[in-house]
Structure formats: structure tokens, C-alpha cells
């Protein structure tokens, strides 16, 4: 076998380095010097009003320390966010710093739209992060994203409403899905239909994950195939039909309308539903919108389940566009978001309970009410291994789920037909990517 000469090896190494530099970023060098000139970065996120205000404060704190860096915030609600991001990325006009979600991470990363943050390790450190949490932002050994925090699926109950209608809060250590039906029915009846017992839970993928996991199944296999048994999915939809038909959840058209609206207009936020399924990190935003007393409950059915339904989900991530012209400055800002106590003290648990362990332990004692409740919730629940990251091509899974839920709620498809169709369509989307 021919061995490389020293010179050949050097050439190959240099070419490799040059290639890596080309592939990694379009404009600047992520580990370059921080510019002293005036620099403008664009930073995009989704969220509620409460989050927009807090994020702006964080930006102000950063620019105070770095007066030559201007950060332009571009914020939207969840539904419009991904359309806008896809459009700007396609137009080669992506924001420098991108708030990323687990659903879309693989779709963007595997297509080369995100910077490998390890190439910016001079400005952006991750040493204080829980290794397992950090791994959720890595694909094929490249760190495309840093988790902002952890979240877990939960039930939110409005205790003011329960008091008003003299319904006792169920014991969430033992409650089953049938118990949810019973208590929701009591609320709907006591309010004369003005308030419905619960929101429908057929509109976000967390609900499906929980349902599958409690039955020892999963939505995706580790290889990224859709493996949820159709019968199981059908039973999930049957449950939603029962809720709507029995008046425990709003009528179909109202559920559909609320599911498409921002968080502030949901049944929980407008005190129109007593129970609702949410990520625990949304509690503070919900409470701010609702103005009433909201409490986190463990998921129904956990006591009866064959395996734990609950899991830790990275609530969201920080990413940098691979085509950013100022990757070094962008990395410096992400470092501030991820590692600075000052930023954490402003954001609290709005983006999840921080995945940065040093920050978390310093933060928890300072929390108040809803933030503290959200943080404590994570420690009180039983969780299993986290599900696989959403495969490339499946980022539309919630749209597909929503459409099928609508079909089922409006009796256009039986739960069984919807389940078969859902699995087929989702698998086709993954295969096409």
C-alpha cells in the first residue's frame, strides 16, 4: 500500500481545512476576532408577548456591554415563524441567530443551513451544559444547536375555575384518562357550557408522543421510521372524539379555531377551558394571559401506564445561520444567551428550565410562583428516555396531525382510517427528504 508523503498529507489537510471553511460559513470566520466596527446582527424567535418583552431586555443588556453590536429582533408567533424562516433561508437572507425547535432541527441542519457551533468554540463555550441535554442539539457529531432549556409535557389546570364551579382538583399522582373525562364533564356541566372542562389535545405532537409512550410504543424508530401502531393512534383520536361529543372539550370548530390561534387566545389563556395540555415552560406565559390561578398537574394515565409517558424535551435551541456574515459576533451573543447569569435572570424559565446546570442551580432559588412551579415540575415527574429527534422531512408532522385530527373531529374519517393515512403520509414525507 502506498503511503502518503509528508507533503501530500499536508496538501490534503490544507484542502480539507479549506473545504471545511467553505462549507461551514458563507461570510466570516466563526472563530475570528470580534470586530470593533459597527456590526448589526439579526435575531429571530417565536413566542408570546411576555417572551418578546423579556428577550428585548436581554438584547439591551448585551448591547450595553457591546455598544458596537446592534441586534435587530424579529419575532413572530409560532404559526408564522416557520414560513418566514424558510422564505428567508431560501432567499439567502437568513437571520444570524435563530431560535430553533426540535421539529425542524434535522431538516435545517442536514441541509446545511446551520453553523456547526464547535467551529465557534473560541467565543461560545458549552462546558457548563448537561451532556445529555447538549447531545439533543448534535447531529452526526456536529453541534448545530444549543438547547435553551428543558421542558416536559404537562397538564395545566385553572384552580380558580374549579373553585368557582366547586369541582375538586384531581389527585395527579393517580389520575387516569377516564378521570380527566369525569372531572372535565363536571366542569362543563356546572358552568352550563360557558366553560368547557378541557381543551382538545389532538393538535400538538406532544400529546401523541405521550399516548404512544404510555403504551410502550413510539412515534419514530431510532432509524427515523414511523412505527406507531395505527390501532394505538386510532385510540388517541377516539379519545378526542369522545371529549368533543360529550361536551367535555369544545365543539370541533371551536377547538380547530383555537388550535390555530396564538397561545394568548387559547382556551387556557382565556379561561374558557379548565384543563389543557401544555409544555410546563408555557405556564408563565399562560398565567400572564389568563390572570387566574393556574397549576401544573402530572399527566393523566401515568399511574396506569406500562411505561412512563413523560420525557424531557429540549424546549428550544439557539442556532446560527451557516451563511451568517458575522458568525463570531453571533457566537458571542449566543454565548451570552446560553452562559450568562444576567440573561438567565431576565429570561427565567420562559424558554424552559435552563439546560446549563451552573445557571440552573443559581437560578432556581430566585424564581417566583409560576417559574418556580415550572422548574419544580421537572423534578417531580417520572420520565423515560427521550424520543428520537424529528427526522429530516418530518418537520410538517404537526400540520399533518392537525389535518387528521380535523378529519376525525368532523367525522370525515374514522379514527382507524385517519391513523392509516397519517402513518403513510408522514413516512412518505420522510422518504422524500
Amino acid at each position, binding site marked *: 500500500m502506498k503511503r502518503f508523503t509528508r507533503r501530500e498529507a499536508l496538501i490534503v489537510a490544507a484542502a480539507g481545512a479549506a473545504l471545511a471553511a467553505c462549507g461551514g460559513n458563507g461570510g466570516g470566520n466563526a472563530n475570528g476576532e470580534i470586530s470593533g466596527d459597527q456590526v448589526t446582527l439579526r435575531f429571530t424567535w417565536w413566542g408570546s408577548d411576555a417572551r418578546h418583552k423579556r428577550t428585548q431586555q436581554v438584547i439591551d443588556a448585551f448591547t450595553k456591554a457591546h455598544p458596537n453590536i446592534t441586534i435587530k429582533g424579529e419575532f413572530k408567533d409560532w404559526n408564522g415563524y416557520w414560513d418566514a424562516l424558510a*422564505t428567508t433561508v431560501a432567499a439567502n437572507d437568513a437571520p444570524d441567530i435563530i431560535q430553533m425547535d426540535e421539529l425542524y432541527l434535522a431538516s435545517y441542519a442536514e*441541509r446545511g443551513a446551520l453553523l456547526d457551533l464547535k467551529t465557534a468554540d473560541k467565543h461560545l463555550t458549552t462546558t457548563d451544559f448537561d451532556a445529555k441535554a447538549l447531545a439533543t442539539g448534535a447531529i452526526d457529531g456536529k453541534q448545530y444547536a444549543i438547547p435553551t432549556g428543558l421542558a416536559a409535557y404537562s397538564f395545566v389546570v385553572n384552580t380558580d375555575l374549579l373553585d368557582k364551579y366547586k369541582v375538586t382538583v384531581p389527585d395527579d399522582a393517580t389520575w387516569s384518562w377516564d378521570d380527566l373525562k369525569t372531572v372535565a364533564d363536571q366542569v362543563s356541566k356546572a358552568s352550563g357550557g360557558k366553560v368547557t372542562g378541557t381543551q382538545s389535545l389532538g393538535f400538538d405532537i406532544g400529546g401523541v408522543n405521550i399516548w404512544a409512550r404510555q403504551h410502550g410504543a413510539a412515534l419514530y424508530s431510532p432509524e427515523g421510521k414511523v412505527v406507531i401502531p395505527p390501532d394505538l393512534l386510532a385510540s388517541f383520536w377516539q379519545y378526542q372524539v369522545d371529549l368533543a361529543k360529550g361536551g367535555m372539550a369544545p365543539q*370541533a*370548530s371551536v*377547538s*380547530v*379555531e383555537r388550535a*390555530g390561534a396564538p397561545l394568548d387566545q387559547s382556551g387556557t389563556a382565556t379561561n374558557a377551558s379548565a384543563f389543557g395540555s401544555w409544555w410546563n415552560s408555557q405556564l408563565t406565559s399562560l398565567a400572564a394571559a389568563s390572570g387566574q390561578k393556574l397549576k401544573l398537574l402530572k399527566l393523566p394515565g401515568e399511574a396506569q401506564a406500562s411505561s412512563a409517558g413523560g420525557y424531557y424535551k429540549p424546549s428550544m435551541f439557539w442556532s446560527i445561520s451557516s451563511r451568517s456574515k458575522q458568525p463570531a459576533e453571533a457566537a458571542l451573543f449566543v454565548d451570552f444567551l446560553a452562559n450568562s447569569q444576567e440573561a438567565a435572570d431576565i429570561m427565567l424559565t420562559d424558554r424552559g428550565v435552563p439546560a446549563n446546570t451552573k445557571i440552573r442551580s443559581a437560578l432556581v432559588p430566585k424564581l417566583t410562583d409560576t417559574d418556580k412551579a415550572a422548574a419544580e415540575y421537572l423534578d417531580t415527574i417520572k420520565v423515560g428516555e427521550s424520543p428520537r429527534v424529528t427526522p429530516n422531512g418530518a418537520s410538517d408532522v404537526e400540520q399533518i396531525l392537525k389535518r387528521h385530527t*380535523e378529519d376525525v373531529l*368532523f367525522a370525515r374519517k374514522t379514527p382507524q382510517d385517519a391513523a392509516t393515512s397519517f402513518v403513510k403520509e408522514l413516512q412518505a414525507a420522510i422518504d422524500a427528504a
Partner: protein
Amino acid sequence: MSSLGELQRLGSSTAGPPRKRDNRAAFFFLSPWFAGLVLITAGPVAASFVLGFTDYNLIQPPEFNGLENFQRMLHDERLHHALGVTFTYVFVSVPLQLAFALGLALLLDRGMRGLAFYRSVFYLPSLLGTSVAIAVLWRQIFGADGLFNQVLGWFGVQGQSWISDPGTALSTLIVLNVWTFGAPMVIFLAGLRQIPVMYYEAAAVDGASKARQFRSITLPLLSPIIFFNLVLQIIHAFQSFTQAFVVSGGTGGPSDSTMFYTLYLYQRGFHSFDMGYASALAWLLLVIIAIFTAINFWASKRWVFYDD
């Protein structure tokens, strides 16, 4: 409207300048539009034609895949569904809208006081109709807690969310389109003004009823204008996007009941990162619109009456 009539009068009163100079003036006034076409629209149009034959995910460079995108269309059930929704929308809303526009134009043509005011009021929805603001307003009006349900409530009817029920969502969009009857109405008004009064006078002398006058004078003489409006509004309706996008929150829901062709195209391109297929879809839409316009022109020989 009077401006059209004035143009006509100007044309006939100026002592017949050579046609060439007329054309030059026309090109001059059209030049901003041509500049926009060449500088802004032409490039993307050409690019989308090429992309129609590629597999392009928006982020990585496109790869040629021949006719694969077009073969896919044959088996794409959601595309077929979207075509069905779009056809329903076009063939229900356009006739309704034109009938409405013609009816109001006839009313306004009777020369009532404050005509200019009413004309502007009726034209206003057309200016706003395709805007995001009106679509948002529509969401509010036909939502679960909307104005429409409040009105129903006065009569003791318990409403629902009209925009979120697959049985009614498309109807709310059709109502929205019909409501924007202002543009064809203004053109009808201009057409009505062109019909010489003497025809009506002669018919009245002969004892023709108003209905008979409408059928035998107004409709034939107005037919070129009706044809013009029909072609324009059909093309327009095929391309509707904003209303469905905003009212359904970009999903075409509930249950794909408002999945317009353009919205499906958009979703393929920007949600599924499938821009090659989306580009091919755009060209299919062009072909569909061209076919319908050709049919229109062919059929027009049988019912459009040119008075020259």
C-alpha cells in the same frame, strides 16, 4: 366610469392623429409596468420554469430530475383535492360576483344623487379585499366569538366557528370574494354609459318593457364588457392566495377545505422544502388558466356582440 368615457371622447374629438403616435404614447405610459416585468418578474419566472424540472430543497443546489415532478402530480391526491377546491371557488364565486357587480352598476347607472359617493363606497371593498387586514377581519367576523354569531345570537341561534368548520369555511371565502365586486362594477358602469340612450328611447316608443330593454339592448351591447370581466375575474380567482392563507392560518384547513391551489403550491415549496415540485405546480397553474382563457375566447364567439 367617466374616465373611460372621457378617453373615448378624447380619442374621437382629436382630429385623427396617426395610429403610430398613439401606440408610442401607450408604450410610454406602459413603460413603468414593462420595467417592473423585465427587472423584477421575468427572472424569477424563467428560474421557476427551470426549477420545475429539478429536485430543489431551497438550501442545497437544485438537481435535474427530468419530468419526475410532473409524473408525481398524477398520483398526488392532495393536489387533486386542491384542484377541486379551487374549481369550486372559481365557478361559484365568479358568477355570483359578476351578477352582483352588474346589478349594482344598473342601480347606480340610473343617475341618482351622490353617485360618486356611492360608487366609491361600493368600490372600497375591492381595494381592501385582497389585503391581509380584511382577511384578518374575516377571521374575526366568522370566528366562534365573531360578529356573525352575535347577530345569529339575537335570533336565538347558537353559532359555531364558521371559518373552522370544513363544511362552511370555503363559503366564507366565496362571500369574501363576492364582496369585492367593486372593480367589475366600475367597468360595468363605464360600459353602461357607452350604450347610446337613443336605443332605449326607440325601444320605449315601441312599447318594450324594462326587462325586454335589458335583455335586448343592455345585455348584447354590454356583452364585450361582461366577457372582459369574466376573463379577468376567472384568472384572478384561480390565483387567490391571501384570503385563504390568512383565514386558515396558512394551513388550508380545516381538513384541507380551503386548500387553494396556490396555497398547496406554497406549502410544498416553503413547508416541505420541495421547491422543484412547487415550481412545476406553478407552471401547471399557468397552463390551466391558459386553457380556461382559451375556452372563454372560443365560447365568446357565440355570445359576445361587437358593435362595429
